[in-house]
């Protein structure tokens, strides 16, 4: 059990920085972020600057080598450090990983809601398919993004209270979203649309809820209202960031059930972020596993859950007890995630990995392909050797 805590505090605190170092870092930071902010805040940017083409026209979004950094006084946090994956039209992509691995920053980058000015997209593309054309959100100026946000892509957060305005009635808040998107609608039409949305998200008494204030609703009802607002303008993509994490399990079951039903009624793609493997397994068509700002493995839900390949994915699954699946002792991944400011130049998982071998001292492993859809960044799969896989039926069997 002692092996599990050898990291961070055995060494000199890596976060320690002297005052003069810190001053140097902040002035350098300001130079970088000022330049990026100036570019972002330009008013009349020709469309050609951010016009792009999708690699596959069937995708709603393509993240391509996205890097989003935070320039802080103690150093640069590489929150998202080269992330590439696609969200196909009408599909649900689940993003899973432990806290701090960059799930939220990935989605906030797409919304251009990363905390400015310290948070910046420094490299890569986020191609967003608008049907007749595609934009690269990473290059888009702020004023253009305002037209996309809420209309073409919307977001549901863990705590709905933070995104609902406490002093306005539920109905007025949904109306506002709809009026922005459909300015041609009359007042009565807007109201009807709002009531229809409340009905769609399973609220039995839409007229009653329409008149309520957010604090008068339970957590589960507030989350339904958030979902109603998020899908009101028929967006191409809905991002749900831990949408059920704050809810009790029976209420979570209601909300997941709602998502499943909605999926058949709307044609939006869904990006579902959660740390709960169970929720991902129930909802997602494709799964992306993140570790320390990078994707370590991605594939279809069946590939990831039935044939996990990366030692981190395998370890994560073996760590979590599953109802009615007995193990005497839980597998536990030793140690903890490296500091995002001082990332190593080898595989980020190496210091915790029980399958490391001599190659792992080399540079960060490239992405190796196990199938058309299944990709993994680990040297064990350098020949795409699926037979080289670690199994975890009961316990931990390693074929090497």
């Amino acid at each position, binding site marked *: *059990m*002692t092996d*599990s*805590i050898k990291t961070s*505090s*055995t060494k000199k*605190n890596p976060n320690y920085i002297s005052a003069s170092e810190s001053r140097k870092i902040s002035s350098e930071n300001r130079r970088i972020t000022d330049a990026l902010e100036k570019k972002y805040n330009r008013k009349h940017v020709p469309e050609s600057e951010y016009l792009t083409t999708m690699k596959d026209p069937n995708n709603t979004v393509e993240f391509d080598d996205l890097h989003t950094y935070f320039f802080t006084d103690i150093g640069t946090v590489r929150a998202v450090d080269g992330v590439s994956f696609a969200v196909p039209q009408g599909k649900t992509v689940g993003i899973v990983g*432990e*806290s701090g691995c960059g799930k939220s920053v990935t989605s906030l980058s797409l919304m251009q809601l990363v905390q400015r000015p310290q948070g910046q997209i420094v490299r890569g593309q986020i191609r967003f398919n608008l049907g007749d054309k595609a934009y690269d959100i990473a290059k888009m100026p702020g004023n253009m993004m305002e037209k996309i946000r809420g209309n073409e892509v919307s977001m549901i957060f863990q705590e709905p209270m933070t995104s609902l305005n406490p002093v306005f009635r539920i109905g007025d808040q949904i109306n506002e979203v709809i009026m922005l998107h459909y300015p041609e609608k009359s007042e009565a039409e807007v109201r009807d649309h709002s009531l229809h949305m409340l009905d769609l998200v*399973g*609220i*039995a*008494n839409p007229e*009653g*809820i329409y008149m309520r204030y957010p604090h008068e609703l*339970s*957590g*589960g*009802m507030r989350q*339904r209202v958030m979902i109603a607002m998020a899908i009101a303008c028929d967006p191409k993509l809905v991002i749900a960031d831990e949408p059920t994490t704050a809810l*009790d*399990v*029976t*209420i*979570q*079951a*209601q909300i*997941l*059930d*709602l998502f499943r039903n909605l999926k058949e009624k709307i044609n939006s793609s869904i990006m579902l972020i959660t*740390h*709960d*493997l*169970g*929720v*991902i*397994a*129930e909802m*997602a068509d494709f799964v992306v596993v993140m570790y320390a700002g990078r994707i370590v493995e991605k594939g279809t*839900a*069946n590939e990831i*859950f*039935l044939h996990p390949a990366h030692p981190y994915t395998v*370890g*994560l*699954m073996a*760590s*979590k*007890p*599953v*109802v*009615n699946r007995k*193990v005497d*002792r*839980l*597998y*536990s*991944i*030793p140690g*903890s995630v490296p500091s995002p400011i001082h990332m190593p130049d080898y595989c980020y998982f190496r210091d915790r990995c029980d399958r490391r071998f001599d190659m792992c001292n080399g540079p960060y492993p490239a992405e190796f392909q196990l199938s058309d859809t299944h990709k993994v960044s680990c040297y064990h799969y350098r020949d795409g050797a699926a037979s080289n896989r670690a199994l975890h039926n009961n316990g931990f069997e390693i074929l090497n």
Partner: protein
Amino acid sequence: MNDNNTMLEVKNLQKFFPIKSGFFGRVVGQVKAVDGVSFSIERGKTMGLVGESGCGKTTVGKTILRLNSKTGGEVYFNGKEIFGLGNAEMLKMRPHMQIIFQDPYSSLSPRLPVGEIIGEAVREHQIVPPNEFDDYVTRIMQACGLQEYHKDRYPHEFSGGQRQRICIARALALNPDFVVCDEPVSALDVSIQAQIINLLEDLQKEFNLAYLFISHDLSVVQHISDTVGVMYLGNLVEFANKDEIFSNPLHPYTKALFSAIPIPDPTVRRNRIILEGSIPSPANPPSGCKFHTRCTYAMERCKVEVPVQLDKGNGHMVACHLYDDNSGSEKQPETDEASFRAIGEQYDKANENKTESNPA
């Protein structure tokens, strides 16, 4: 006390909180946070306590340690009713019963070094002679996966998982028989969760500890517990051996709760029981069976008659009129596999095209 192995026995425990209102704090009502709960825990065993937020789990944990006053009922610890103890006796009892919380940070003093956090109460209660003190603290820290040089560090220098180790070490240092673990891993990431759960299990074996393990995560509870109690709005609605309750849940709430757990296997598609509505407020709970507003089986009598705990054999206790021999119900369910599945299908039909009907 009938059994030497019983370490803790809780009989009909009640804890009500006054609801105050206005400038003068007039008492206008009561929150019946714990409303007649009975169970017992054997030496060296773990009882899991599950239920949704606000159902009274934490209040049970605190009250049985006498960290709260009680409203009614009795708590026997090693044969002694703890609310009957005088101050001096209670002080002597304290080290034997400890608690660890969900948020390890807020329960650790930020101004004390870790060695002092763990050792403070050891000195106060004279657990070991002064000349053995240092070695003792080191030994306890090592048992919890901490190193000796951590003694001089402060809580903020540790990660969440390590802070929970400090809390565990602090509790363990007093050589307890019993530890209430209130959501000890709920705030931790999965890989860290597993480290802490394994630690708790190792310590239990080594020191013959009994745990009351409170959690809303049923898979964790199933992994760690010997017996399991399910609470709803201040009542213990079902209590049984772990294997018994997971293979044969009886109470309609327990069934719904179990079926709501997401399973990390995309090939499994279950007949899920989706409960309607939200959890009613414990300040104003429904009459009769408190679950009747969400229960698909609710009968007329459920709205007026409070169900009592029934023993269905092997200590499997359930509080539901369906299992009452003179329930007068046609629907009295059997408890074999096949009918359990039938019940699931029935629920599915009942819930088709329906979701939440009860606002707020």
